[in-house]
């Protein structure tokens, strides 16, 4: 069983947490996520033009790049994380250009060497899979695809074909961290995805509070939180780990126990 599969097979919904690599003391912040109870880590690769992201992650990318973060740094952060946490799944998330700059095979090989389990590329839809997908699959890395409210039933098989790890359901048509979706629409969408795929379904975009996370965890296999955590790095700087650990713990408690509450 892969690390990702195990994380979704713990008997409770998984908390997936995102931070941007190179923004603040990333190693300490990632450790805080794990200590707080995160089940899967998404490590954002900073990009100059994060056009699918809202203000929080845009700012994090710019802070990271201003610090001089390179792709080699991102891979080193990943490799160091893997050395400290042999069992926590680690997923790289970012935009196509930094991933394909030296060729998809180079990127896939480096990611595999760093112990990365999956890759989410925002701007490579299934139609352009050849740009990165084959290289990832050959290297044993799961290409994690996104499904959205605009992905209809006719299109869903194309999205699922070749995808791995888990399916990331983007709950709102929009950018990260801005709006939140109505719970009812998420229930329906997750049910449709589950009917079409055996992959775990994680839901994200606009999830900021334990209450929101719990509501999603009642129906989905995982909940993704990004902007709210990234914002703490911007606000707290060197003291971010404490704030991150605290928020993660409250999110983890809500997500992990979401279904128990329903049962009770």
């Amino acid at each position, binding site marked *: 069983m892969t690390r990702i599969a195990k994380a979704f097979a713990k008997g409770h919904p998984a908390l997936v947490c995102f931070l941007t690599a190179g923004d603040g003391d990333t190693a300490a912040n990632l450790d805080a996520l794990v200590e707080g109870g995160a089940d899967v880590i998404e490590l954002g690769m900073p990009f*100059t033009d994060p056009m699918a992201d809202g203000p929080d992650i845009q700012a994090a990318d710019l802070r990271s790049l201003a610090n001089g973060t390179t792709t080699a740094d991102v891979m080193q952060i990943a490799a160091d994380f893997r050395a400290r946490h042999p069992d926590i799944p680690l997923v790289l998330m970012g935009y196509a250009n930094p991933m*394909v*700059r030296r060729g998809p095979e180079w990127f896939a090989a480096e990611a595999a060497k760093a112990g990365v389990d999956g890759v989410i590329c925002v701007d490579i839809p299934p139609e*352009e899979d050849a740009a990165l997908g084959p290289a990832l699959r050959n290297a044993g890395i799961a290409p994690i*695809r996104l499904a959205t409210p605009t992905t209809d039933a006719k299109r869903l098989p194309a999205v699922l074909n070749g995808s791995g790890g888990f399916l990331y359901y983007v709950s709102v048509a*929009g950018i990260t961290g801005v709006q939140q979706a109505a719970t009812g629409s998420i229930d329906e969408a997750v049910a449709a995805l589950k009917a079409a795929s055996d992959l775990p379904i994680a839901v994200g975009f606009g999830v900021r509070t334990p209450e929101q996370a719990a509501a999603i965890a009642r129906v989905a296999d995982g909940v993704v939180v990004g902007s709210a955590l990234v914002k703490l790095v911007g606000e707290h700087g060197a003291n971010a780990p404490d704030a991150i650990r605290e928020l993660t713990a409250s999110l983890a408690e809500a997500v992990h126990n979401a279904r128990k509450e329903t049962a009770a």
Partner: protein
Amino acid sequence: MTEKLNSFRNQPDDSGHFGDFGGRYVAETLMPLILDLEREYRAAKVDPAFHEEFDDLLEHYVGRPSPLYYAERLTEKLRESAPEGKGAQVWFKRDELNHTGAHKINNCIGQILLAIRMGKTRIIAETGAGQHGVATATVCARFGLPCVIYMGATDVERQQPNVFRMKLLGAEVVPVQSGARTLKDAMNEALRDWVANVHDTFYIIGTAAGPHPYPELVRDFQSVIGREAREQMQKRTGRLPDLLVAAIGGGSNAIGLFHPFLDDPSVKMLGVEAAGHGLDKQHAASLAGGFPGILHGNKTYLLQDEDGQIAEAHSISAGLDYPGIGPEHSWLKESGRVDYTSITDDEALDAFQLLCRTEGIIPALEPSHAIAEVAKRAKEMDRDQIILANLCGRGDKDIFTVAEALGAKI
């Protein structure tokens, strides 16, 4: 059949690729919409009513066909410093005489007709210098649709007259504060708006770039430039030009002029990028100084570092100030069919003044790059040869920039 296989005019392929370039590199949220747009464009392309309305608006609203003009005094002026027997004739396609003062309106007319066909009720666009923003605001006013224009805050400051024009036309202008606050950032913000408003919003992209089918449809709408020019030139001179020259930012005016001539082997073509302060300094010449990469929905040459981070472009011309280029130009460069070169800010400024004084035409800074290259090439070509350059915009919008560069106060 052989001719068809050897054509340079049948790109892109069914999946939107020009060779290795182009494609549809967008977030999943946008993908279904992009596919809808492609279906709608395929239907419009074979719908005589669509073409009729497009042609009618171009004739009576935009003022087409634009004239083909022999620049006699410029030709003579260039011959003065040319070697014996050299000094080609210089002709201009006068797209600066279009309504709103540039070629941008051709594309906006086509795209707003598509938006209406698709039942979209809200229009967004990005703009650099403001010409595409003005053209978009214009067609939105003409068709009564609400319009939001994203413009880098830096460009808002340096292009105040166009900002006010857009507001007069009823558009909302949103200054974009992210990044270097120029065209690239405006495009990011327009994409963010689009992804959040896919149900009712049409994005009118201003250049022959972005995800498929934009590069193709923008090219098709702008190809009216080359079709007219080809017919006008044959009528006036009984022959085809020897060399076509056009400035390139994203490359829509250039592809519009070039495309109808691509299968005429006797016609050479030259795209002119902005070399800014110089190719060894800050510039906007993606083909000369960039590498293939993925940005804003397509694979193309981009100014970027070794990690794939996008560089800030620079050109005195806000319309050329973009670190990428339309994917068809990347393909035409690699196929060898079109040559590409670059012109610095200073050379463009000289050419700007040269055209003012020899022809009584104040060109925009964008085509001033083309004119500067024409001045070089004309002197190397025989007197009976013909250069046709695209005068794609007029310079009223640039007089403040030029005054500042020349140290003049207005």
